[in-house]
């Protein structure tokens, strides 16, 4: 087991280096000159050269990569051209919106999906199962940003209960902040909840077919206990795996929902940086999100092998 973990960690480090190389290649190596993009059409040739020099773009690519990577390892992702602030500081300040949004969506997803999935599995091939499956089928067909728009249409435009978007920050009270994240979190979590309902249902159905469940029932264990102690506990392994992978998807989905609800999170930072040609920010945000997703996937993978002793790795 220890050797397995050590190998996985080594693979994780290698993967993170590939992630950084991919980000670097897209921004720096593919055709296109960041300095020319920043400068636009107005700059003179000398000004362009000066900018290229100050950005270090006139040095060999490998030197540029090692320097950028070295900085990133020390937590220095460069400086934003637009805000004149360290990219790391900008990302950290925007995470106070994106992370709570993704976590609220995750909470909504789990709270909705696990009971529904369990219900559908225990009512297999009965009306309740079919209704749940139809609902989840509809749920995975609705784009998250459209769900957001519909929620705005109903709760903001028609009923006038909440604002259609915006975020005043945590300083104006946690209640108000959480309220402005509520609709986006629901829109974001809905799709993932629909995915997780199906995963939960099939995981529980698998376990319900096991011999030990029949044995438990045969020796007179109450149905409630069979479900909680024997079934759900064992079904949780695949469920946790799916839910873990979904965390990364929630992070990516948050980018879209931040746009729908005008929330100042990581996604809006990146989108703003693109229109402002603020390449260090784009590069930093991309590196941050991709690395986070890779680390989440790694943790899920590891958790899976720890949780399930039946799995043996070579």
């Amino acid at each position, binding site marked *: 087991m220890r050797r397995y973990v050590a190998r996985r960690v080594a*693979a994780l480090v*290698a*993967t*993170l280096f*590939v*992630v950084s190389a*991919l*980000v670097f290649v*897209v*921004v720096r190596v*593919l*055709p*296109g000159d*960041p300095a020319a*993009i920043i400068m636009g059409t107005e700059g003179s040739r000398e000004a362009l050269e000066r900018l290229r020099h100050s950005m270090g773009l006139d040095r060999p690519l490998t030197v540029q990569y090692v320097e950028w990577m070295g900085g990133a390892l020390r937590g220095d992702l460069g400086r934003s051209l637009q805000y004149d602030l360290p990219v790391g500081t900008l990302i950290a300040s925007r995470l106070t919106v994106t992370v709570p949004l993704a976590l609220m969506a995750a909470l909504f997803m789990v709270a909705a999906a696990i009971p529904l999935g369990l219900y559908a599995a225990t009512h297999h091939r009965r009306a309740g199962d079919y209704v749940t499956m139809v609902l989840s*089928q*509809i749920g*995975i*067909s*609705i*784009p*998250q*940003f*459209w769900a957001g*728009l*519909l929620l*705005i*249409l109903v709760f903001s*435009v*028609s009923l006038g209960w909440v604002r*259609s978007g915006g975020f005043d920050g945590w300083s104006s009270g946690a209640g108000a902040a959480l309220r402005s994240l509520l609709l986006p979190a629901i829109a974001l979590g809905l799709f993932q909840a629909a995915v997780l309902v199906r995963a939960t249902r099939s995981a529980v159905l698998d376990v319900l077919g096991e011999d030990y469940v029949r044995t438990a029932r045969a020796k007179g264990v109450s149905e409630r206990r069979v479900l909680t102690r024997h079934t759900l506990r064992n079904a949780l392994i695949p469920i946790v795996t799916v839910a873990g992978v979904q965390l*990364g*998807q929630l992070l*990516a*989905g948050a*980018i*879209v929902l931040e*746009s*729908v609800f005008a929330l100042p999170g990581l*996604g809006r930072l*990146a*989108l703003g*940086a*693109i229109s402002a*040609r603020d*390449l260090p920010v*784009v*590069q930093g*945000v*991309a590196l941050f*999100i*991709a*690395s*986070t*997703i*890779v680390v989440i*996937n790694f943790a899920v993978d590891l958790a899976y092998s720890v949780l399930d002793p039946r799995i043996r790795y070579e």
Partner: protein
Amino acid sequence: MRRRPLRHATFTLGAAITLALILVAAVSLVYTPVDPLAMSITGRLQGPSADHPFGTDQFGRDVLSRVMAGAVTSIAVGVIAVGIGAGVGVLLGLVSGYVGGWPDEMVMRIVDAVQGFPAILSALLFTAVFTPGTAVSMVAIGIAFVPAFARLTRAAVLELREREFVIAARALGGGDARLMLRHILPNSLPPLIVQATTSFPVAILAEAALAYLGLGTQPPQPSWGLMLKEAQNFLGMNPWFAVFPGGAIAVAVLGLNLLGDGLRDLLDPKTA
């Protein structure tokens, strides 16, 4: 026992919706009720009416015609993106599974890394250096599909490599390329077909999201996601404008999802 596809309700419903989607897209190439680009200053932001069953947008363009034309964009992006994902993924998976050793290790690390880039993230990166457009959507979405295809193919190759018929073919003097293309690849097709079918609706969702964010399809080209971006500014004046394009996405995705589920049932002997 041979299963008859048309008796499978999920598959049939999914196939019917998918066919309707393709038909609408095909028809829109030669006929739409109104020119999807024709503007009308007097007929802006109208609700549904006999002349405009889906209403009109902020330039007085017919939403029904634009929804029809948007189907073409969705299908085109879906086909190319799935093509890129399947093409690159299957190639990587074949090499990785068949060759093994350090090339396998290297390919798998790249696949792990690519998994960190959902379509939205790749599109963000690409638009930082390229002009946003449909091509960016296709490539960004295609890249996001690579890991799933690579893993599936690799797993199938690892399993098939040791099977008797492959060993027999090798004993008869079949070369690596022949073994891979004639014996291993055809036998790993069913899961790949299911994967391609289930990737398609994901591509349509992603195309819409990218267009909505301004990273993909650009105006005036009709795209469902783009229409929703425009509709958001006029939710108070014409809510229907936000309903129909979104409904089109949902119906298209629903049909393709059902088709994928049905195909999985029909092709996978384990779920029989």
